[in-house]
Protein backbone atom coordinates (compact mmCIF):
# COMPACT_ATOMS: atom_id res chain seq x y z
CA UNK A 1 0.00 0.00 0.00
CA UNK A 2 1.28 3.48 -0.81
CA UNK A 3 1.33 6.36 1.64
CA UNK A 4 -1.83 8.02 0.32
CA UNK A 5 -4.21 9.02 3.04
CA UNK A 6 -7.83 8.25 3.78
CA UNK A 7 -10.07 11.32 4.20
CA UNK A 8 -12.89 10.77 6.69
CA UNK A 9 -15.91 13.11 6.36
CA UNK A 10 -18.31 12.92 9.33
CA UNK A 11 -20.34 15.75 10.91
CA UNK A 12 -20.66 14.14 14.35
CA UNK A 13 -17.50 15.03 16.28
CA UNK A 14 -17.66 11.92 18.50
CA UNK A 15 -17.92 9.50 15.60
CA UNK A 16 -15.36 11.47 13.56
CA UNK A 17 -12.80 11.09 16.38
CA UNK A 18 -13.61 7.38 16.70
CA UNK A 19 -13.16 6.75 12.95
CA UNK A 20 -9.86 8.60 12.82
CA UNK A 21 -8.62 6.95 16.01
CA UNK A 22 -9.48 3.49 14.63
CA UNK A 23 -7.70 4.05 11.30
CA UNK A 24 -4.58 5.50 12.96
CA UNK A 25 -4.58 2.59 15.45
CA UNK A 26 -4.36 0.24 12.44
CA UNK A 27 -1.51 2.34 10.96
CA UNK A 28 -3.71 3.61 8.14
CA UNK A 29 -2.72 7.22 7.41
CA UNK A 30 -5.87 9.31 7.72
CA UNK A 31 -7.32 12.76 8.27
CA UNK A 32 -10.83 13.78 9.26
CA UNK A 33 -13.07 16.77 8.49
CA UNK A 34 -16.54 17.74 9.70
CA UNK A 35 -18.35 18.70 6.49
CA UNK A 36 -18.36 18.41 2.71
CA UNK A 37 -17.00 21.92 2.14
CA UNK A 38 -13.95 21.24 4.31
CA UNK A 39 -13.52 17.88 2.53
CA UNK A 40 -13.35 19.51 -0.93
CA UNK A 41 -10.82 22.08 0.32
CA UNK A 42 -8.68 19.33 1.86
CA UNK A 43 -8.84 17.22 -1.33
CA UNK A 44 -7.59 20.23 -3.34
CA UNK A 45 -4.57 20.55 -1.07
CA UNK A 46 -3.45 16.98 -0.56
CA UNK A 47 -3.16 13.57 -2.15
CA UNK A 48 -5.78 11.17 -0.83
CA UNK A 49 -6.31 7.59 -1.89
CA UNK A 50 -9.83 7.13 -0.50
CA UNK A 51 -12.71 9.17 0.89
CA UNK A 52 -14.96 7.64 3.58
CA UNK A 53 -17.97 9.94 4.01
CA UNK A 54 -21.18 10.02 6.02
CA UNK A 55 -24.38 10.35 3.94
CA UNK A 56 -26.51 12.42 6.35
CA UNK A 57 -24.78 15.73 6.90
CA UNK A 58 -26.17 19.25 7.23
CA UNK A 59 -25.88 21.63 4.25
CA UNK A 60 -24.11 19.42 1.65
CA UNK A 61 -24.85 15.72 2.19
CA UNK A 62 -22.66 12.73 1.31
CA UNK A 63 -24.36 12.08 -2.06
CA UNK A 64 -23.77 15.69 -3.17
CA UNK A 65 -20.16 15.46 -2.00
CA UNK A 66 -19.80 12.21 -3.99
CA UNK A 67 -21.10 13.96 -7.15
CA UNK A 68 -18.69 16.86 -6.66
CA UNK A 69 -15.74 14.50 -6.12
CA UNK A 70 -16.62 12.42 -9.19
CA UNK A 71 -16.68 15.58 -11.32
CA UNK A 72 -13.28 16.81 -10.17
CA UNK A 73 -11.43 13.55 -9.30
CA UNK A 74 -13.20 10.79 -11.25
CA UNK A 75 -10.74 8.11 -10.10
CA UNK A 76 -10.84 8.89 -6.42
CA UNK A 77 -12.82 6.10 -4.71
CA UNK A 78 -15.57 7.13 -2.28
CA UNK A 79 -17.14 4.86 0.33
CA UNK A 80 -20.35 6.09 1.96
CA UNK A 81 -21.33 5.40 5.56
CA UNK A 82 -25.05 5.24 6.08
CA UNK A 83 -27.27 4.53 9.05
CA UNK A 84 -30.11 3.64 6.74
CA UNK A 85 -29.41 0.28 5.18
CA UNK A 86 -31.93 0.74 2.42
CA UNK A 87 -31.25 -0.82 -0.94
CA UNK A 88 -32.46 2.28 -2.79
CA UNK A 89 -29.98 4.51 -0.97
CA UNK A 90 -27.14 2.10 -1.70
CA UNK A 91 -28.15 1.72 -5.37
CA UNK A 92 -28.38 5.50 -5.76
CA UNK A 93 -24.94 5.94 -4.21
CA UNK A 94 -23.36 3.25 -6.41
CA UNK A 95 -25.03 4.79 -9.50
CA UNK A 96 -23.49 8.13 -8.55
CA UNK A 97 -20.07 6.49 -8.50
CA UNK A 98 -19.52 5.29 -4.94
CA UNK A 99 -17.45 2.13 -4.93
CA UNK A 100 -18.94 0.77 -1.74
CA UNK A 101 -21.08 1.59 1.26
CA UNK A 102 -20.84 0.56 4.89
CA UNK A 103 -23.79 0.44 7.27
CA UNK A 104 -23.52 2.07 10.69
CA UNK A 105 -22.79 0.83 13.25
CA UNK A 106 -19.74 -1.18 12.18
CA UNK A 107 -16.77 -2.44 14.16
CA UNK A 108 -13.12 -1.49 13.86
CA UNK A 109 -12.18 -4.65 11.97
CA UNK A 110 -14.86 -4.09 9.31
CA UNK A 111 -13.70 -0.50 8.74
CA UNK A 112 -10.01 -1.41 8.58
CA UNK A 113 -10.60 -4.38 6.23
CA UNK A 114 -12.75 -2.27 3.92
CA UNK A 115 -10.23 0.59 3.81
CA UNK A 116 -7.24 -1.74 3.30
CA UNK A 117 -9.09 -3.56 0.53
CA UNK A 118 -9.94 -0.32 -1.31
CA UNK A 119 -6.43 1.10 -0.88
CA UNK A 120 -4.83 -2.11 -2.20
CA UNK A 121 -6.98 -1.96 -5.36
CA UNK A 122 -5.89 1.66 -5.81
CA UNK A 123 -2.22 0.76 -5.42
CA UNK A 124 -1.98 -1.01 -8.80
CA UNK A 125 -2.45 1.87 -11.32
CA UNK A 126 0.36 3.79 -9.64
CA UNK A 127 2.80 1.56 -11.44
CA UNK A 128 1.29 1.89 -14.92
CA UNK A 129 -1.16 4.55 -15.99
CA UNK A 130 -4.15 3.57 -18.15
CA UNK A 131 -7.25 5.70 -18.65
CA UNK A 132 -9.54 3.23 -20.43
CA UNK A 133 -11.38 0.82 -18.06
CA UNK A 134 -10.66 -2.16 -20.39
CA UNK A 135 -6.96 -1.28 -20.45
CA UNK A 136 -7.05 -0.86 -16.66
CA UNK A 137 -8.47 -4.35 -16.24
CA UNK A 138 -5.78 -5.67 -18.55
CA UNK A 139 -3.06 -3.90 -16.53
CA UNK A 140 -4.51 -5.34 -13.32
CA UNK A 141 -4.57 -8.83 -14.85
CA UNK A 142 -1.00 -8.41 -16.08
CA UNK A 143 0.08 -7.32 -12.62
CA UNK A 144 -1.57 -10.36 -11.02
CA UNK A 145 0.01 -12.73 -13.55
CA UNK A 146 3.39 -11.08 -13.10
CA UNK A 147 3.30 -11.53 -9.32
CA UNK A 148 2.53 -15.28 -9.57
CA UNK A 149 5.41 -17.67 -9.19
CA UNK A 150 6.22 -19.27 -12.55
CA UNK A 151 5.66 -22.98 -12.92
Amino acid at each position, binding site marked *: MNAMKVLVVEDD*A*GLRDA*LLDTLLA*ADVPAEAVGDAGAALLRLEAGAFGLVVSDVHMPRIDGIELLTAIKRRWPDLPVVLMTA*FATVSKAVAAIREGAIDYIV*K*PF*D*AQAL*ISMVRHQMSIRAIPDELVAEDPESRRLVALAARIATRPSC
Partner: protein
Amino acid sequence: MNRSNHTTSAKHSQLKTAFAAFGSASEKLSARFESLEAKVVWLTRELLEARAGRESTEARLAAIIDGLPAGVLLLDAGGCVVEMNSTASDLLGQPRPQERFEAMLGRNVADPARLIGAIELKNGRFITLSRRNLPGGEIVLLTDVSEAHLMQTYLERQQRLSTLGELAAGLAHQIRTPLAAALLYASQMTLPGRDEADLKRCAGKTADRLRELDKLITEMLAFARGAASVEPVSVNALLEQVAQWLRPTLRAGTRLTIRTEAPDLRVSVNAPAFVSAVLNLATNAMQAAHSNLEIELLARRSAGGRAEIVVSDNGPGIAEHLKARVFEPFFTTRARGTGLGLAIVKSIVEAHRGGIRLDPSRSQGASFIIDLPAET
Protein backbone atom coordinates in the same frame (compact mmCIF):
# COMPACT_ATOMS: atom_id res chain seq x y z
CA MET B 1 -171.91 44.56 57.74
CA ASN B 2 -171.68 45.37 54.05
CA ARG B 3 -169.02 47.88 54.84
CA SER B 4 -167.28 45.34 56.92
CA ASN B 5 -167.44 42.75 54.07
CA HIS B 6 -166.08 45.26 51.63
CA THR B 7 -163.07 46.03 53.89
CA THR B 8 -162.25 42.33 54.36
CA SER B 9 -162.34 41.72 50.62
CA ALA B 10 -159.94 44.61 49.96
CA LYS B 11 -157.43 43.30 52.49
CA HIS B 12 -157.69 39.86 50.99
CA SER B 13 -156.90 41.25 47.55
CA GLN B 14 -153.88 43.16 48.88
CA LEU B 15 -152.56 40.05 50.61
CA LYS B 16 -152.95 38.09 47.40
CA THR B 17 -150.99 40.69 45.46
CA ALA B 18 -148.36 40.70 48.12
CA PHE B 19 -148.07 36.92 48.06
CA ALA B 20 -147.88 36.99 44.29
CA ALA B 21 -145.07 39.58 44.44
CA PHE B 22 -143.29 37.59 47.12
CA GLY B 23 -143.64 34.42 45.07
CA SER B 24 -142.19 36.13 42.05
CA ALA B 25 -139.32 37.62 44.03
CA SER B 26 -138.64 34.30 45.65
CA GLU B 27 -138.49 32.57 42.29
CA LYS B 28 -136.08 35.18 41.01
CA LEU B 29 -133.91 34.82 44.12
CA SER B 30 -133.95 31.09 43.83
CA ALA B 31 -132.88 31.29 40.16
CA ARG B 32 -130.03 33.74 41.00
CA PHE B 33 -128.93 31.55 43.87
CA GLU B 34 -128.76 28.52 41.62
CA SER B 35 -126.77 30.49 39.08
CA LEU B 36 -124.37 31.68 41.81
CA GLU B 37 -124.07 28.17 43.12
CA ALA B 38 -123.19 26.90 39.64
CA LYS B 39 -120.58 29.66 39.34
CA VAL B 40 -119.05 28.69 42.68
CA VAL B 41 -118.81 25.07 41.56
CA TRP B 42 -117.22 26.17 38.29
CA LEU B 43 -114.77 28.53 40.02
CA THR B 44 -113.87 25.88 42.55
CA ARG B 45 -113.14 23.42 39.75
CA GLU B 46 -111.09 26.07 37.93
CA LEU B 47 -109.17 26.77 41.11
CA LEU B 48 -108.44 23.11 41.70
CA GLU B 49 -107.37 22.62 38.13
CA ALA B 50 -105.09 25.69 38.26
CA ARG B 51 -103.52 24.49 41.51
CA ALA B 52 -102.98 21.02 40.08
CA GLY B 53 -101.44 22.56 36.95
CA ARG B 54 -99.07 24.72 38.95
CA GLU B 55 -98.04 21.83 41.13
CA SER B 56 -97.34 19.67 38.09
CA THR B 57 -95.23 22.47 36.49
CA GLU B 58 -93.27 22.85 39.71
CA ALA B 59 -92.78 19.10 39.95
CA ARG B 60 -91.70 18.95 36.32
CA LEU B 61 -89.23 21.83 36.81
CA ALA B 62 -87.87 20.22 39.96
CA ALA B 63 -87.49 16.92 38.12
CA ILE B 64 -85.71 18.65 35.23
CA ILE B 65 -83.32 20.51 37.55
CA ASP B 66 -82.68 17.35 39.53
CA GLY B 67 -82.05 15.35 36.40
CA LEU B 68 -79.72 17.94 34.82
CA PRO B 69 -76.32 16.48 33.93
CA ALA B 70 -74.80 19.60 35.57
CA GLY B 71 -74.72 20.33 39.29
CA VAL B 72 -76.95 23.24 40.36
CA LEU B 73 -76.65 24.88 43.80
CA LEU B 74 -78.69 27.76 45.15
CA LEU B 75 -76.90 29.89 47.74
CA ASP B 76 -78.43 32.41 50.12
CA ALA B 77 -77.13 35.94 50.65
CA GLY B 78 -74.59 34.55 53.17
CA GLY B 79 -73.20 32.08 50.62
CA CYS B 80 -74.69 29.01 52.35
CA VAL B 81 -76.19 26.22 50.26
CA VAL B 82 -80.01 26.41 50.33
CA GLU B 83 -80.78 23.86 47.66
CA MET B 84 -78.81 21.56 45.41
CA ASN B 85 -79.67 18.97 42.78
CA SER B 86 -78.58 15.35 42.84
CA THR B 87 -75.70 15.86 40.36
CA ALA B 88 -74.29 18.54 42.67
CA SER B 89 -74.53 16.20 45.67
CA ASP B 90 -72.96 13.38 43.63
CA LEU B 91 -70.00 15.65 42.91
CA LEU B 92 -69.62 17.47 46.25
CA GLY B 93 -71.69 15.48 48.79
CA GLN B 94 -74.07 17.19 51.22
CA PRO B 95 -73.24 20.53 52.85
CA ARG B 96 -72.63 20.60 56.61
CA PRO B 97 -75.06 22.72 58.67
CA GLN B 98 -74.47 26.44 58.03
CA GLU B 99 -71.56 25.58 55.73
CA ARG B 100 -70.63 28.14 53.10
CA PHE B 101 -70.21 26.93 49.51
CA GLU B 102 -66.49 27.87 49.43
CA ALA B 103 -65.81 25.70 52.49
CA MET B 104 -67.83 22.83 50.99
CA LEU B 105 -65.84 23.11 47.73
CA GLY B 106 -62.57 23.38 49.66
CA ARG B 107 -63.29 20.03 51.39
CA ASN B 108 -63.71 18.36 48.01
CA VAL B 109 -60.93 19.70 45.77
CA ALA B 110 -57.70 17.78 45.33
CA ASP B 111 -55.57 20.95 45.40
CA PRO B 112 -57.15 24.06 47.00
CA ALA B 113 -54.54 26.22 45.25
CA ARG B 114 -55.84 25.18 41.82
CA LEU B 115 -59.30 26.70 41.52
CA ILE B 116 -59.12 27.94 37.95
CA GLY B 117 -59.88 26.07 34.75
CA ALA B 118 -60.72 22.40 35.24
CA ILE B 119 -60.73 21.80 39.01
CA GLU B 120 -59.71 18.33 40.16
CA LEU B 121 -61.82 16.85 42.95
CA LYS B 122 -60.62 14.35 45.54
CA ASN B 123 -62.94 11.76 43.97
CA GLY B 124 -60.95 12.01 40.73
CA ARG B 125 -63.57 13.99 38.78
CA PHE B 126 -62.81 17.29 37.04
CA ILE B 127 -65.35 20.16 37.17
CA THR B 128 -65.67 23.71 35.98
CA LEU B 129 -67.57 26.35 38.00
CA SER B 130 -69.79 29.19 36.82
CA ARG B 131 -71.68 31.53 39.16
CA ARG B 132 -74.46 34.13 38.73
CA ASN B 133 -75.95 36.50 41.27
CA LEU B 134 -79.66 36.20 41.97
CA PRO B 135 -81.86 38.52 44.09
CA GLY B 136 -80.98 37.46 47.66
CA GLY B 137 -78.36 34.88 46.71
CA GLU B 138 -76.40 33.18 44.00
CA ILE B 139 -76.75 30.24 41.64
CA VAL B 140 -73.73 27.99 41.05
CA LEU B 141 -73.43 25.66 38.09
CA LEU B 142 -70.94 22.75 38.27
CA THR B 143 -70.09 21.06 34.98
CA ASP B 144 -68.45 17.66 35.08
CA VAL B 145 -65.66 17.89 32.48
CA SER B 146 -63.86 14.68 33.52
CA GLU B 147 -64.36 12.98 30.16
CA ALA B 148 -63.33 16.09 28.21
CA HIS B 149 -60.33 16.56 30.50
CA LEU B 150 -59.26 12.92 30.10
CA MET B 151 -59.79 13.19 26.35
CA GLN B 152 -57.68 16.36 26.24
CA THR B 153 -54.88 14.71 28.26
CA TYR B 154 -55.11 11.64 26.01
CA LEU B 155 -55.02 13.78 22.86
CA GLU B 156 -52.02 15.77 24.05
CA ARG B 157 -50.24 12.49 24.83
CA GLN B 158 -51.21 11.08 21.43
CA GLN B 159 -49.89 14.20 19.72
CA ARG B 160 -46.60 13.87 21.56
CA LEU B 161 -46.42 10.16 20.70
CA SER B 162 -47.29 10.86 17.09
CA THR B 163 -44.58 13.52 16.88
CA LEU B 164 -42.23 10.99 18.44
CA GLY B 165 -43.34 8.42 15.85
CA GLU B 166 -42.52 10.78 13.00
CA LEU B 167 -39.10 11.20 14.50
CA ALA B 168 -38.27 7.50 14.31
CA ALA B 169 -36.05 7.86 11.24
CA GLY B 170 -34.19 10.79 12.74
CA LEU B 171 -33.88 8.86 15.99
CA ALA B 172 -32.25 5.90 14.26
CA HIS B 173 -29.56 8.24 12.97
CA GLN B 174 -29.18 9.98 16.33
CA ILE B 175 -28.88 6.73 18.26
CA ARG B 176 -26.68 4.95 15.78
CA THR B 177 -24.11 7.75 15.67
CA PRO B 178 -22.86 7.51 19.30
CA LEU B 179 -23.46 3.75 19.10
CA ALA B 180 -21.22 3.52 16.00
CA ALA B 181 -18.48 5.46 17.81
CA ALA B 182 -18.79 3.24 20.92
CA LEU B 183 -18.61 0.10 18.78
CA LEU B 184 -15.48 1.35 17.00
CA TYR B 185 -13.68 2.05 20.28
CA ALA B 186 -14.83 -1.20 21.89
CA SER B 187 -13.82 -3.33 18.88
CA GLN B 188 -10.46 -1.54 18.63
CA MET B 189 -9.52 -3.29 21.88
CA THR B 190 -9.36 -6.63 20.05
CA LEU B 191 -6.94 -5.39 17.36
CA PRO B 192 -3.48 -6.97 17.56
CA GLY B 193 -0.66 -5.13 19.31
CA ARG B 194 -2.78 -3.09 21.72
CA ASP B 195 -0.99 -2.12 24.92
CA GLU B 196 -2.40 -1.31 28.34
CA ALA B 197 -2.64 2.46 27.62
CA ASP B 198 -4.52 1.82 24.33
CA LEU B 199 -7.01 -0.45 26.08
CA LYS B 200 -7.59 2.08 28.87
CA ARG B 201 -8.12 4.91 26.40
CA CYS B 202 -10.53 2.86 24.25
CA ALA B 203 -12.53 1.76 27.30
CA GLY B 204 -12.84 5.40 28.44
CA LYS B 205 -13.91 6.57 24.98
CA THR B 206 -16.46 3.72 24.74
CA ALA B 207 -17.95 4.73 28.09
CA ASP B 208 -18.10 8.41 27.00
CA ARG B 209 -20.06 7.55 23.86
CA LEU B 210 -22.44 5.28 25.81
CA ARG B 211 -23.08 8.09 28.31
CA GLU B 212 -23.91 10.37 25.38
CA LEU B 213 -26.39 7.74 24.20
CA ASP B 214 -27.93 7.58 27.67
CA LYS B 215 -28.32 11.39 27.74
CA LEU B 216 -30.04 11.30 24.38
CA ILE B 217 -32.52 8.67 25.58
CA THR B 218 -33.23 10.65 28.79
CA GLU B 219 -33.99 13.74 26.69
CA MET B 220 -36.31 11.79 24.42
CA LEU B 221 -38.21 10.41 27.40
CA ALA B 222 -38.60 13.91 28.84
CA PHE B 223 -40.02 14.96 25.49
CA ALA B 224 -42.46 12.04 25.38
CA ARG B 225 -43.65 12.51 28.95
CA GLY B 226 -44.36 16.24 28.88
CA ALA B 227 -44.77 18.11 32.13
CA ALA B 228 -46.02 16.52 35.35
CA SER B 229 -47.96 18.12 38.25
CA VAL B 230 -48.08 21.91 38.49
CA GLU B 231 -48.09 24.41 41.38
CA PRO B 232 -48.32 28.21 41.56
CA VAL B 233 -44.90 29.82 41.89
CA SER B 234 -43.45 33.30 41.57
CA VAL B 235 -41.77 33.91 38.20
CA ASN B 236 -38.99 35.73 39.99
CA ALA B 237 -38.30 32.66 42.16
CA LEU B 238 -38.16 30.51 39.00
CA LEU B 239 -35.62 32.82 37.39
CA GLU B 240 -33.55 32.82 40.61
CA GLN B 241 -33.49 29.00 40.47
CA VAL B 242 -32.31 29.17 36.85
CA ALA B 243 -29.57 31.64 37.85
CA GLN B 244 -28.44 29.38 40.71
CA TRP B 245 -27.84 26.54 38.25
CA LEU B 246 -26.32 28.82 35.67
CA ARG B 247 -23.87 30.95 37.71
CA PRO B 248 -21.29 28.20 38.43
CA THR B 249 -21.06 27.42 34.69
CA LEU B 250 -20.57 31.00 33.47
CA ARG B 251 -17.35 31.59 31.59
CA ALA B 252 -15.14 34.56 32.46
CA GLY B 253 -16.44 37.67 30.73
CA THR B 254 -20.04 36.41 30.59
CA ARG B 255 -22.57 38.49 32.52
CA LEU B 256 -25.94 37.21 33.69
CA THR B 257 -28.68 39.62 34.78
CA ILE B 258 -32.19 39.02 36.09
CA ARG B 259 -34.72 41.81 35.56
CA THR B 260 -38.26 41.82 36.91
CA GLU B 261 -40.84 44.26 35.62
CA ALA B 262 -43.67 42.55 37.51
CA PRO B 263 -42.43 41.33 40.94
CA ASP B 264 -45.80 39.83 41.94
CA LEU B 265 -46.13 37.75 38.76
CA ARG B 266 -47.04 34.11 39.45
CA VAL B 267 -47.53 31.11 37.16
CA SER B 268 -48.70 27.53 37.64
CA VAL B 269 -45.87 25.28 36.52
CA ASN B 270 -44.02 22.09 37.25
CA ALA B 271 -41.00 23.93 38.63
CA PRO B 272 -38.23 21.37 37.83
CA ALA B 273 -39.43 20.94 34.23
CA PHE B 274 -39.90 24.65 33.71
CA VAL B 275 -36.56 25.61 35.27
CA SER B 276 -34.83 23.10 32.99
CA ALA B 277 -36.62 24.62 29.96
CA VAL B 278 -35.45 28.18 30.79
CA LEU B 279 -32.01 26.81 31.72
CA ASN B 280 -31.81 25.14 28.31
CA LEU B 281 -32.46 28.48 26.57
CA ALA B 282 -29.86 30.25 28.70
CA THR B 283 -27.33 27.43 28.13
CA ASN B 284 -27.93 27.74 24.38
CA ALA B 285 -27.12 31.44 24.66
CA MET B 286 -23.88 30.53 26.44
CA GLN B 287 -22.77 28.29 23.56
CA ALA B 288 -22.32 31.42 21.46
CA ALA B 289 -18.61 32.03 21.04
CA HIS B 290 -18.67 35.69 21.98
CA SER B 291 -16.51 37.75 24.26
CA ASN B 292 -18.37 39.99 26.74
CA LEU B 293 -21.46 37.83 26.38
CA GLU B 294 -24.49 39.21 28.20
CA ILE B 295 -27.45 37.01 29.05
CA GLU B 296 -30.63 38.52 30.46
CA LEU B 297 -33.59 36.76 32.06
CA LEU B 298 -36.60 39.08 32.15
CA ALA B 299 -39.98 38.58 33.81
CA ARG B 300 -42.83 40.84 32.67
CA ARG B 301 -46.58 40.98 32.16
CA SER B 302 -47.74 41.17 28.53
CA ALA B 303 -50.30 43.68 27.29
CA GLY B 304 -52.84 40.82 27.32
CA GLY B 305 -52.09 40.08 31.01
CA ARG B 306 -50.07 36.90 30.40
CA ALA B 307 -46.79 36.15 32.14
CA GLU B 308 -43.74 36.47 29.91
CA ILE B 309 -40.23 35.19 30.47
CA VAL B 310 -37.70 36.58 28.01
CA VAL B 311 -34.28 34.96 27.62
CA SER B 312 -32.02 37.13 25.51
CA ASP B 313 -28.35 37.44 24.69
CA ASN B 314 -26.08 39.76 22.70
CA GLY B 315 -24.46 36.87 20.78
CA PRO B 316 -24.46 36.32 17.03
CA GLY B 317 -28.21 35.60 16.94
CA ILE B 318 -29.99 33.13 14.68
CA ALA B 319 -29.66 33.32 10.90
CA GLU B 320 -32.87 34.46 9.19
CA HIS B 321 -33.27 31.24 7.17
CA LEU B 322 -32.94 29.07 10.32
CA LYS B 323 -35.46 30.98 12.45
CA ALA B 324 -38.47 28.98 11.27
CA ARG B 325 -36.74 25.67 12.03
CA VAL B 326 -35.19 26.16 15.47
CA PHE B 327 -38.05 24.40 17.30
CA GLU B 328 -38.02 21.36 15.02
CA PRO B 329 -36.90 18.17 16.76
CA PHE B 330 -33.38 17.07 15.74
CA PHE B 331 -32.63 20.43 14.21
CA THR B 332 -29.16 21.50 15.30
CA THR B 333 -26.31 23.63 14.07
CA ARG B 334 -23.85 22.21 16.59
CA ALA B 335 -21.61 19.24 15.81
CA ARG B 336 -22.40 17.63 19.16
CA GLY B 337 -25.96 18.87 19.54
CA THR B 338 -28.81 16.37 19.65
CA GLY B 339 -31.21 18.96 18.25
CA LEU B 340 -33.74 17.97 20.89
CA GLY B 341 -33.10 20.89 23.26
CA LEU B 342 -35.42 23.52 21.82
CA ALA B 343 -38.03 20.93 20.81
CA ILE B 344 -38.13 19.78 24.45
CA VAL B 345 -38.31 23.41 25.68
CA LYS B 346 -41.27 23.97 23.34
CA SER B 347 -42.94 20.75 24.48
CA ILE B 348 -42.55 21.72 28.17
CA VAL B 349 -43.89 25.26 27.56
CA GLU B 350 -46.87 23.96 25.57
CA ALA B 351 -47.66 21.40 28.28
CA HIS B 352 -48.11 24.45 30.57
CA ARG B 353 -50.65 26.00 28.14
CA GLY B 354 -47.94 28.43 27.02
CA GLY B 355 -46.13 29.35 23.85
CA ILE B 356 -42.58 30.12 22.83
CA ARG B 357 -41.39 32.35 20.00
CA LEU B 358 -38.36 34.22 18.81
CA ASP B 359 -38.58 37.99 19.23
CA PRO B 360 -38.71 39.16 15.59
CA SER B 361 -37.93 42.78 16.52
CA ARG B 362 -34.52 41.85 17.90
CA SER B 363 -31.75 43.20 15.67
CA GLN B 364 -28.79 41.85 17.66
CA GLY B 365 -28.44 38.54 19.48
CA ALA B 366 -31.26 36.08 20.10
CA SER B 367 -34.33 36.61 22.25
CA PHE B 368 -36.77 33.84 23.14
CA ILE B 369 -40.14 34.83 24.62
CA ILE B 370 -42.08 32.28 26.68
CA ASP B 371 -45.64 33.29 27.53
CA LEU B 372 -47.89 31.55 30.03
CA PRO B 373 -51.26 32.18 31.68
CA ALA B 374 -50.59 34.34 34.76
CA GLU B 375 -52.06 33.29 38.12
CA THR B 376 -54.46 35.90 39.47
